[in-house]
């Protein structure tokens, strides 16, 4: 296989993995903070 096949695979897996974890962390944070804020307003 060409060297670039390995390079593209390495960069793709890195950016997909990093992006996925960052997005999951952001979504969990937004969801939890919105829920906490909602409860505070109701109280």
């Amino acid at each position, binding site marked *: 296989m060409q*060297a670039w096949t390995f390079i593209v*695979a*390495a960069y793709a897996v*890195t950016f997909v*993995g990093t992006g996925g*974890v960052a997005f999951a962390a952001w979504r969990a*944070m937004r969801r*939890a903070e919105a829920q906490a804020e909602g*409860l505070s307003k109701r109280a």
Partner: protein
Amino acid sequence: MHRFANPARFLSIARPLTGWLFWPGLGLLLIGAGCGLFVTPADYLQGETVRILYIHVPAAWLGMAGWSGIAIAALMQLVWRHPLAGVAGRAIAVPGALFTALCLITGSLWGRPTWGTYWQWDGRMTSMLVLLFLYLGYIALGNASARQGQQGGGVSQVTAIFGLIGAVNIPIINRSVVWWNSLHQGPSITLRGSSIDTAILWPLGPTLLGSSLLFGAIVLMRMRAILARNKVEARMQRLARG
């Protein structure tokens, strides 16, 4: 550090800091990776595959730095009973495991065209794989202690002790290429300098700094999520009690 023991004070700093770490981190990572892919020359011996360096080294650094962070958090939890230390440990574990896995995957993809094999059971690769298993164990223990609901979203003392003992593996990873024969190259970047030519080395600075800032932002987002969930759970328990 005890100044940040109050979650409200911690959040007042963490909220703006998340964006300040995330966007510059992403920018630096993209610039460094772009320059590493399209600007720097190929290596005279390894050819184009040397470009994997710019993502492999930051992944290795963050895998090891992440566990060092877990060990420091564990020490703060066990010795000073810092209320956010366990939360920080849990928040670090998932991105730390991810970057350790990325280090192993990108290393394999670099190894196949360079060494002729994806994997070898040598000191560096095996100790890095052990680090990934340590992370998975810590995540499982951390989730179990959070389910018990007694740690304020943090981790149990047993999990903290596990985090502290696991730190033994960090110097082993670092020195593995010196102590044992390996296909993996020896330490090429030390405090005394680098054996890599600067024409190839320079994009590593932006990718290292960028991925470190991004890692910090991810940890802060995960800590904020844990603290918000704690707040919701505490409120629900108070409502249930009437």
